[in-house]
């Protein structure tokens, strides 16, 4: 954040992250009222630059920007993610010429947001909304916000919260950002996946790793299920979707083993019946809808911090 961008959860110090979460909390309180809109970013232009389809992330950022009165341009460049490099450079220069103040970028290539920030292609603040299999920092912020809301409401940070992240860690930007952020905030993270879906080099991460969901499920406070991509099956990461679901899915048996106050999370979109059963997704322990709601507040906080609007107090 010191750099004026949000590219990785690693960019945030613990204090900056906690500050963002408390800003998000204040903003959430305001937008829960009858008038959801604040004038804070009036006159600022936020571009949603999406090289990959992601309706939920895009509308979350769009809602966040609009609630702060920014002008929002949606630029959806489908299918051109890794075709030819000029795509990103030329697009960035075009947006620069049009006067974008912030670019929210979703791209299929790991590091695309970092490239945008490091090159001279564009001067705007860059917010990484998911780059390849690298990171998705605002997802981690909204997850941290949601965990705090449910399990550490009055504490300063997430010390001692036991988080299981289950599924395709290898290809998951959500997992990478969450590992960085949640451990920084004091949580104890355990990754659960078949060995094929864990990166070589995961032993350097500040986490515990397990191949066995059943041995971990009773001990956790948070179980975060990751979406499994069906094409992974064709590449032999696991034999069949049924086998995956049996071994790593959150079904009613496993749901019943969760401790009393544990919560169920999923970044969405869900494959109901695959990594998460319908009863788990809809159970009282599930905070999946809260995650979506909190996503707007957290993204408002990020835009607010990066675009340096008026003081929060002034805008009330």
């Amino acid at each position: 954040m010191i750099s004026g961008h949000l590219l990785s959860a690693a960019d945030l110090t613990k204090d900056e992250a906690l500050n963002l979460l408390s800003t998000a909390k204040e903003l959430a309180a305001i937008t829960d009222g009858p008038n959801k809109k604040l004038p804070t970013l009036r006159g600022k232009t936020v571009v949603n630059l999406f090289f990959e389809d992601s309706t939920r992330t895009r509308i979350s950022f769009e809602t966040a920007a609009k609630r702060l009165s920014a002008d929002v341009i949606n630029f959806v460049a489908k299918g051109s993610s890794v075709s030819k490099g000029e795509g990103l450079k030329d697009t960035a220069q075009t947006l620069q010429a049009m006067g974008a103040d912030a670019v929210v970028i979703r791209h299929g290539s790991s590091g695309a947001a970092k490239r945008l920030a490091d090159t001279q292609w564009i001067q705007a603040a860059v917010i990484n909304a998911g780059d390849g299999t690298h990171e998705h920092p605002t997802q981690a912020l909204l997850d941290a916000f949601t965990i705090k809301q449910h399990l550490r409401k009055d504490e300063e940070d997430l010390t001692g919260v036991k988080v299981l992240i289950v599924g395709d860690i290898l290809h998951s930007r959500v997992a990478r950002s969450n590992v960085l952020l949640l451990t920084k905030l004091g949580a104890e993270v355990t990754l659960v996946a078949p060995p094929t879906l864990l990166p070589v080099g995961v032993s350097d991460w500040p986490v515990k790793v397990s191949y066995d969901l059943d041995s971990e499920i009773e001990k956790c406070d948070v179980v975060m299920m990751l979406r499994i991509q069906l094409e992974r099956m064709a590449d032999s990461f696991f034999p069949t979707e049924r086998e995956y679901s049996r071994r790593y899915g959150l079904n009613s048996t496993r749901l019943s083993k969760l401790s009393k106050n544990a919560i169920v999370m999923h970044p969405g979109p869900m494959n109901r019946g695959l990594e998460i059963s319908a009863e788990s997704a809809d159970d009282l322990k599930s905070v999946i809808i809260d995650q979506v709601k909190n996503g707007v507040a957290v993204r408002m906080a990020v835009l607010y911090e990066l675009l340096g609007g008026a003081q929060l107090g002034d805008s009330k």
Partner: protein
Amino acid sequence: MIKINNAKLADASLVDIEISNGVITNINKASGIKSADGIDATGKMLLPGLVDLHTHLREPGREDAETVLTGSQAAVSGGYTAISSMANTNPVADTAGVVEQIFRLGKTAGLCDVNPIGAVTKGLNGEQLAELGAMADSIAKVRIFSDDGKCVSDPLIMRRALEYVKTFNGIIAQHAQEPRLTINAQMNEGSVSARIGLPGWPAIAEEAIIARDILLAEHVQSRLHICHLTTAGGVELVRWAKQRGIQVTAEVTPHHLLLTDELVENYDPIYKVNPPLRTQKDVMALREGLAEGVIDIVATDHAPHPAEDKDCEWQAAAFGMVGLETSLSVVIKTMVESKLMSWSDLVDRMSVKPAQIAGYENQGQTISKLSPANLILIDPAASWQVERDKLKSKSKNTPFDRMTLPGVISDVIYNGKLVLSSGKLVNGSNE
């Protein structure tokens, strides 16, 4: 006639030499007298011209990235008097016609020997042998064959190629990369790739092919050359093969002797190269392997790419780095300054051995009376700062930009003619 006075040889002796008709006509212990019409080489070293067995020149097909002429200019600026153009041009150098075209372009440029490497398989498709014999018999006299850029992954095709080239004492230069283990691979698989989320290119994908091919070479009693070795495990495999008497040689690139995968952290595609930058442990093993002679030679894998192929996001970028102009300096820095190798070792790894492997008879010769005058003069005590825009190569994709490196090349003599004089390319040397 060219006279050079008071030059220091790799063995530290000081000499005066005279060159005419393309050969060294006189070599004497330095008299200390400076002849008015000679080159004063006081403080400089006189070495045989460097020989590269792995150069991408991009002509025919991608003349916007490099031509035989601009590649030759880069070569001479880097102290090379012989380079070997890889076959992955467009069209592929898989026929006598294409290799003869490249050979002639090299002659026309006239700055250094340009020896084409022929493709192993037609169109680099890995399926059917190219006309290896026709390329061997052509005026280009091809002896090295490689599908570099791609691995000859089919073990049967590799076996046949190794066997077939024995007819004309050829050698297969293998780009060792198991294709199934490197689908969409972007960087070394390890700690950094796990963190930054780029698909990994595991060391095992290189080592599995090296292991297979040294066994094949042993079985059919043929010559195998391993291109751009990058892993500690690969060094061990080649050491083992040599102990068994298998005819295997190996090369390492300057960039793999200096750079590691930590540099990929910022996703700057200038560091994107195939095989990828590895870990510090691999770098140290490569240096030791080269010092020990397990790795026989340094080869540049000079791979020019136009700006747009690097000025983009990582995954869209091309693999490769230019290297001809920085190679000697990087080897001095990593191997000589670190005391791992002597100057004689450097001459062996960068000139003598590569010439022997390829059978380039006029190259890599001892500096003595009547030996061919392919020579370079360098100031080993001086250093220079790499500036990408000043490179002679048409492409500027160097990972060493703004780095200060030791060893300044002042003069290059090719076939008895000065082609680089006081650091400047000599006009009209391409007669």
